[in-house]
């Protein structure tokens, strides 16, 4: 799999002009000769991005909002049918991409050579466009500036039983991947956090500290919602007698703004304030407009491309991109306190998905 | 054995339409067997349905045995299921999802009769109506007449004290009909129930009924014994409607069809009630006697005239002879083969007592009207 991964980011995608002859102008020129493209993301902002892209390059792009699981379904089915209608996807389940779609040849990931300098190396294989920020939140109207919890282990405590609201992890593979990432890469940190909270070392029958956390967390009567859109208002409406800690994506802060409910990040949460989920640019292998697709990837990876989404708290991987003032969450400043994905262990995330699902399912009964 | 009284009943199906039944007063004594006769669409079914409580009168009152069942004025209404009447629907209204037996036993089951008694009762009725062998069939698998008998059986089996039947024998053959009639008559006698029976068969009405009601366009024309209905029809409508072939009419007033005939009749009736001369005279086909012109069978007291035989129709056991005299057609009905040929000249005569006299409004004149004044004076 890692070979395919390397190939995917080498530029030898076989699509469009070869990286050896690459220059942005050539790409634009080639793209202009191609049919219009359709670009897909899980957020509605993709429409804005597509419009801006079209404006900038004069190449027609249509943006389409499709949920993560539907995106994968469409990508696979279109490829199987050799009837590709959607050209570029901005996907959030990195393991699925690297472990399945790229090796299967359904899709390719291309890193624009001219942006390699602007993008940290860990975001180049495959080409990661942006990071979605997920954070623990509370109601500042009740608790003021200080979040009532500051350790993830506290959430497994009796005190918070039934008072945590999160989007159903069984609907959101990123959560499971995150569990595995932590277990694979930072299990020691979790153990330490346990000691910090409970004041004694962790004893567990589970293979990892993270597994123990998941088990305890899940059995703590966590209230799951269909999506974080539902979680936001619940946190916002919580009271002193009935406090609620939530887990939401940064986009919910703009909801909070529109609907006037209070919500703030648990800035002191250890070991991490939240999760940074990578979102990867994927070009359908069967695209009829490979160069236009590449150009759109280039646009997404560029400093300006992600701007519309950054308003919702997404973080661009481009070093030159600056968080806009209008970011409601202010999470841009907290990225250091968040768990950063390690692309090297993503194949394991993919493999262990079911393990974590089952652990959750069984523990939460 | 209840009596039924209708007072000023009116029924309009929609506010704009003409009433289907109007100003109907009807008194039916208990134990009566009333036949209702009338042209199609005159409101027979509607009347029956109102008595049953299935239709709501727009005015008037219905009482059964002194108890008010419907009263528009007083706002009284007793639902059909509380009236305890039996009804045979003109269109049968069998339940397609029940077998013949279940159809018949439905009413018994309602009365919490146990299975065995139910079976016995239903078997008895079905046997009598000749449908026992179809007991396990569904109504859709029966012929029209069989369905009608099921409808009849379903009603009879519960032995209601008031029986309403809407043309219950219309789809049966003559023979079966005769049997059914006998059966109905027997049931009526035994149970002393009050029966209202709508039929188009006058013969049926005549043989079955203790009273006959003749309706026309929603109004009651005459309520009388079969004999009176036939022999003393109260107006021209009844006279014309009852009897087949229908009564012959000769108009005496102006605008009559045959001036010569009217003149000769006027002549014959000389001295009778003067209202006759503006009205009409009716003669039943079977009171018309025919003979060859040479015959001297004609009695003196009868009205007689010459005519040509323009048609002879055998109708199985009797013959209808069409006579034409002075441009008007008259029908005679004879029981023996007429010894007369088509085209022959013939005399016909009618006993003076067999003449029906009607005034210009079509109302019957009293029988004495036929008697000349001078004789009366004597």
């Amino acid at each position, binding site marked *: 799999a890692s070979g395919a991964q390397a190939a995917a980011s080498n530029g030898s995608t076989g699509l469009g002009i070869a990286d050896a002859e690459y220059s942005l102008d050539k790409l634009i020129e080639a793209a202009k000769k191609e049919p219009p493209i359709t670009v897909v993301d899980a957020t*509605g902002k993709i429409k804005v991005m597509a419009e801006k892209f079209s404006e900038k390059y004069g190449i027609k792009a*249509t943006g389409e*909002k499709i*949920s993560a*699981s*539907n995106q994968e*379904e*469409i990508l696979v*089915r*279109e490829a*199987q*049918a*050799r*009837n590709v*209608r*959607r050209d570029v996807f901005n996907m959030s389940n990195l393991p699925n991409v690297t472990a399945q779609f790229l090796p299967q040849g359904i899709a390719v990931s291309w890193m624009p050579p001219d942006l390699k300098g602007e993008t940290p190396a860990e975001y180049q294989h495959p080409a990661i466009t942006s990071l979605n920020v997920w954070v623990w939140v509370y109601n500042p109207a009740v608790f003021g500036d200080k979040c009532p919890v500051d350790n993830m282990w506290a959430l497994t405590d009796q005190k918070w039983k039934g008072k945590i609201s999160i989007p*159903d992890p*069984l*609907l*959101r593979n990123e959560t499971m991947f995150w569990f595995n990432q932590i277990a694979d890469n930072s299990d020691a940190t979790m153990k330490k956090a346990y000691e910090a909270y409970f004041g004694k070392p962790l004893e567990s029958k589970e293979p990892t500290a993270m597994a123990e956390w998941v088990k305890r967390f899940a059995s703590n009567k966590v*209230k*799951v*919602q*269909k999506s974080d859109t539902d979680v936001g*208002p*619940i946190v916002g*409406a*919580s009271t002193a007698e*009935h406090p609620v800690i939530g887990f939401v994506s940064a*986009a919910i802060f*703009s909801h*909070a703004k*529109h*609907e*006037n409910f209070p919500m703030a990040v648990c800035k002191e949460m250890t070991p991490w304030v939240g999760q940074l989920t990578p979102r990867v640019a994927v070009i359908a292998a069967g695209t009829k407009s490979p160069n236009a697709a590449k150009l759109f990837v280039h646009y997404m990876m560029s400093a300006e491309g992600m701007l519309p989404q950054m308003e919702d708290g997404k973080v661009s991987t481009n070093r030159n991109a600056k968080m806009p003032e209008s970011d409601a969450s202010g999470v841009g400043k907290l990225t250091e306190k968040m768990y950063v994905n390690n692309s090297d262990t993503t194949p394991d995330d*993919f*493999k262990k*998905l*079911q393990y974590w*699902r*089952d652990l959750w*399912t069984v523990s*939460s*009964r | 054995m209840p009596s039924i009284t209708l007072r000023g009943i009116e029924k309009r199906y929609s506010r704009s339409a003409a009433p289907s039944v109007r100003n109907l007063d009807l008194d039916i004594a208990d134990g009566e067997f009333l036949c209702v006769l009338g042209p199609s669409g005159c409101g027979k079914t509607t009347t029956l*349905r109102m008595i049953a409580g*299935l239709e709501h009168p727009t005015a008037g009152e219905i009482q059964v045995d002194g108890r008010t069942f419907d009263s528009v004025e007083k706002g009284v209404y007793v639902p059909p*299921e*509380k009236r305890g*009447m*039996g*009804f045979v629907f003109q*269109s049968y*209204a069998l*339940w*397609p*999802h029940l077998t013949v037996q279940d159809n018949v036993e*439905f009413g018994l089951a*309602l009365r919490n009769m146990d299975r065995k008694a139910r079976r016995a009762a239903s078997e008895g009725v079905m046997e009598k109506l000749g449908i026992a062998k179809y007991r396990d069939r569904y109504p859709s698998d029966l012929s029209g007449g069989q369905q009608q008998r099921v409808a009849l059986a*379903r009603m009879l089996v*519960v032995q209601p004290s008031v029986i309403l039947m809407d043309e219950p024998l219309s789809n049966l053959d003559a023979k079966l009909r005769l049997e059914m009639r006998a059966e109905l008559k027997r049931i009526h006698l035994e149970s002393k129930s009050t029966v209202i029976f709508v039929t188009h068969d006058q013969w049926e009405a005549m043989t079955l009924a203790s009273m006959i009601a003749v309706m026309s366009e929603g109004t009651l024309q005459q309520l009388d014994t079969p004999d009176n209905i036939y022999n003393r029809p109260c107006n021209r409508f009844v006279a014309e409607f009852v009897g087949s072939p229908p009564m012959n009419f000769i108009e005496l007033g102006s605008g009559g069809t045959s001036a010569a005939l009217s003149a000769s009749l006027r002549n014959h009736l000389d001295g009778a009630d003067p209202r006759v001369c503006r009205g009409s005279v009716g003669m039943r086909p079977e009171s018309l006697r025919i003979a060859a012109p040479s015959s001297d069978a004609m009695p003196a007291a009868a009205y007689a005239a010459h005519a040509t035989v323009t048609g002879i129709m055998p109708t199985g056991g009797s013959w209808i002879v069409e006579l034409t005299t002075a441009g008007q057609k008259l029908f005679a009905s004879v029981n023996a083969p007429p010894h007369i040929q088509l085209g022959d000249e013939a005399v016909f005569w009618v006993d003076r007592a067999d003449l029906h006299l009607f005034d210009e409004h079509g109302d019957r004149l009293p029988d004495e009207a036929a008697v000349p004044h001078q004789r009366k004076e004597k």
Partner: protein
Amino acid sequence: MFSKYRLKIALREPTVVVGILAALLFSYLIVAPIVSLLGDAFRVQFADSMRIGQAAGSFTFYNLERVFRSIVSPAILWDPLVNTLSVSFGAMAIALVAGGILAWLISRTNIMGRKWFATALIVPYMLPSWTIALAWSSIFLNRTVGGQPGLLESMGFEPPDWLAYGQLPITIVLALHYTPFVILLFGNALRSFDSQLEDSARMLGAPTSVVARRIIIPLMRPSLLSAVTLIFAKCLGDFGVAYILGAPVKYDVLATSLFRSVTARQGGEAAVLAGVIILIGTISVLIDARLVREARRFITIGSKGSMNRTQQLGPWRLPMTALAGAMFVVSVALPLAVLFLSTVMRTPGKFVLDNFTLDYWIGQDLPTTALRTGILITPDFWHAAWNSLWIVGIAAVCAGVLGVLVGYVVVRSPLKSIGAYLRYITFLPYLVPGIAFAAACLSIFAVPHGPIPALYGTAAILILALMADQMPFASRAGISAMMQLGKDPEEAAQVAGAGWWKRLIKVVIPIQKGPLAAGILLPFISGLKGLSLVIMLATPGTDLLTTYAIRLVDFGYSQAANAVVLMLSAIAFFGTLFLQKTTKTSLASGMGG
């Protein structure tokens, strides 16, 4: 004995040909996607291949094993199964009783405002089911899950959990939502029911309850059973309400399990769960088919001298009107009010005057970036509305017409097997989750098959898939209606010289215009509300109202999104009115009027 003569007769009847064509069509539209979906149950999924050491795509019982006998099976299968059955039967029973009474009141009695109720009581189906759940929450919500407290709670009474979450609310909300099925199907059948059949029972002394139990209900069996099986299937497949009211307290149903598997792309698990749901649905269809085996017993139209008289309620008129009114308040007025309130308040649940606004409807120059004006003056909204209208409209009409054809074939075809087959497969789409069905459709329709080109990417695929997805209701409406229509009217037309087609157009369809209209109406309504099919199959760039609303939610404009949902219901409502007016098929009017 299959003589040449019989064959000749059979072939003269176009029902055989039509039946075969319909069977082929639906095999392609419905069976193929579902088979391809279920096939995954026995195939090693890519994600599992490493773990279980078999090549992806090879045959396996691993998925069955996992769903039926692993440590997770109680959580994903057995508990949800029990919950599903209790919720479904409960909802079915409530809907049946409530809908049955209402249908009878509307179509056979003189309650006040019959015409009005005939349309108003279908509205619950026009509102997405979550709106009723929302209304429920806004009254009964307690502190267990959090969020805005419910009305009762703010009045100082804390509703117990069983009233706020889980089985009871899910059951009631589903029942309210699907009651229109009963009202439409049963009401239509009642409307053309010969009132003399009732009369004759009453003459024998049967009180109303017995008339209902022994005469009306048995005779109306096809329509009642159709309604019941459809509701059952819908409840089996509905996860929306169950998720909102059930998931927070771990009350899972099969549909939630399935939804989780599909969303998390657990293909094998999803296929097995779908298989279980389809199996349960199949049992219900078999029961239904058995109970209405002999169609001729349910013929209530076309017999001699039928009458339809309305029953005078007398002193019961007012109470009965109040009953219908109460139902209206509970299932229509309340959810609508809650939904509407949410569109005119900046902060939900804050009842102060300056919190109210019409900005989300007709505001101009709003500060919100992606929605600068209220939805009513946003061209995008109208564009999406128009797209919804025509795409769903066409699909609904096709479904309705095909539904009647299917009904015709099922009831009249001399080849019983075709009828049984059609009856079954047209029922399936309700049992398969929309997203799985859509994915399967995508696979099948994206590739050319023989003469059929690759439809993917055209509007045609959307119409076809929507149509197939809505066939259950359309075909059920058609079947139950045809079962109650006797052969008489058709035979009369036949001897008058009308061939099959003429008979269908001039006799069968006009007599059955009520059920036909219902067969168009409900598919139209639920097509308008549907999302998953559209999202997967729509050509990029064509926004429908649902996708438009989802996008608004995504931006955090939930007030505006709710306004779109309200408008969607309004479109459904006016579409209904329009259809009822043009076809004169209000439940309140009798035959030929």
